[in-house]
């Protein structure tokens, strides 16, 4: 079969048999693809650092007859996460991006909007400043996957939330006004809702430079993660680790 060529993001690898690696790639061409990299575990000459999670590569792979897994022929590194310092917070943030993509993307379904989002966010994910790119990524992923409810009106009564308080609950699909909020709801501030609206109008670069402490939009991220975890029906491993970063 013919060799396919596509830009791709390496999501994760698993050891397979003695010497091979099973690689999950997010390709621009056809979305999430799982492929076998022969001898990649022992001889790193062929793939080098190209199979590190979140490496932006040009991948060459081919489908195999009657086989679910493609064969990864080679990878050319376009941008490596190792080209800037891997601080502890950055390592967790990178892992979070990889886990979200791996959990949320269906197999073999191209999604150029998500691909462009990842490339843009990875370019901002440097040093120890992780909260802005993570917030931007979670927000846009939730929207691009079709899981984001309307943030400006109450799901119970339909009234506008602009200018008023808004609440969310782990088991509810949207925001609620003060009158309709459930027991044990959390509040999402008007400021965070405003930030979300801004993030939908501007590229991630435009938020760089300004300080973004962990507390900023923490309520928004909590709401987004609850929404995402409800849809994938599992807890994200990296969400708990992000929470622990000081």
């Amino acid at each position, binding site marked *: 079969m013919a060799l396919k060529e596509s830009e791709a993001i390496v999501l994760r690898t698993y050891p397979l048999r003695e010497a091979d690696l099973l690689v999950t790639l997010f390709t621009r061409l056809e979305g999430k693809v799982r492929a076998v990299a022969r001898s990649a575990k022992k001889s790193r000459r062929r793939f080098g650092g190209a199979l590190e999670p979140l490496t932006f590569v040009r991948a060459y792979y081919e489908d195999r007859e009657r086989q679910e897994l493609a064969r990864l022929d080679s990878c050319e590194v376009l941008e490596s996460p190792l080209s800037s310092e891997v601080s*502890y917070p950055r390592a967790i943030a990178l892992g979070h991006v990889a886990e979200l993509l791996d959990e949320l993307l269906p197999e073999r379904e191209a999604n150029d909007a998500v691909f462009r989002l990842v490339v843009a966010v990875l370019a901002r994910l440097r040093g120890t400043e992780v909260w802005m790119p993570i917030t931007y990524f979670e927000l846009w992923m939730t929207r691009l996957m079709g899981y984001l409810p309307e943030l400006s009106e109450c799901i119970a009564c339909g009234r506008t939330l602009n200018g008023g308080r808004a609440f969310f609950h782990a088991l509810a699909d949207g925001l609620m006004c003060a009158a309709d909020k459930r027991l044990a709801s959390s509040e999402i501030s008007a400021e965070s809702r405003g930030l979300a609206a801004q993030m939908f109008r501007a590229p991630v670069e435009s938020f760089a430079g300004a300080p973004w402490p962990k507390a900023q939009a923490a309520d928004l991220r909590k709401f987004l993660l609850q929404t995402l975890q409800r849809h994938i029906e599992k807890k994200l491993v990296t969400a708990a680790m992000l929470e622990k970063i000081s």
Partner: protein
Amino acid sequence: MSKFAEPMVRLIDELKKLPGIGSKTAQRLAFHILRSSDDDAEALAAAVRDVKASLRLCTICNNITDVDLCVYCSSATRNQRLICVVEEPTNIAAIEKTKHFNGVYHVLHGSISPLHGVGPEQLRISNLIRRVEGGQVDEVILATNPTVEGEATATYLSGQLRRAGLKVTRIAMGIPVGSDIEYADEITMLKSIEGRREL
């Protein structure tokens, strides 16, 4: 119904748990064991039992050893003031091959791995901190793998160790990025130790 007798199924199932062993290989190994002499089979079973009964972790460096302290920590000729930190016990062999490292080791038993939920608290870091806080150490060489996980671990450790006011170095990246130091040849490994830089 299974096509094998129950004890055979049990052996195949146990063998399948080993890394790199699939169903076919497990069956092949199980039949090999079945055909081998009683003595050979007994020796294999005894070796498996003994390795668990007699091996433990060195209380100073976490290396796998049959005596506490391990050969490195109890050695009078090795420089106990120079510690090389590695991810796995198997990494020690790669560094010993160079024959140019005369310090001692510290084995973390893993690396920081967010996708697997492994943070610093899951690694054997606390006894490293205790080792250096005693003031008996001049330098710590971080020889974790040149991967995202190994780098994250090294960055984290250097932050913790520098607070204790000692020299912290990272092996040079003559080792290809993304690889495992276990597979590095001795020249590359030697160059990596010699070319280490201070963090």
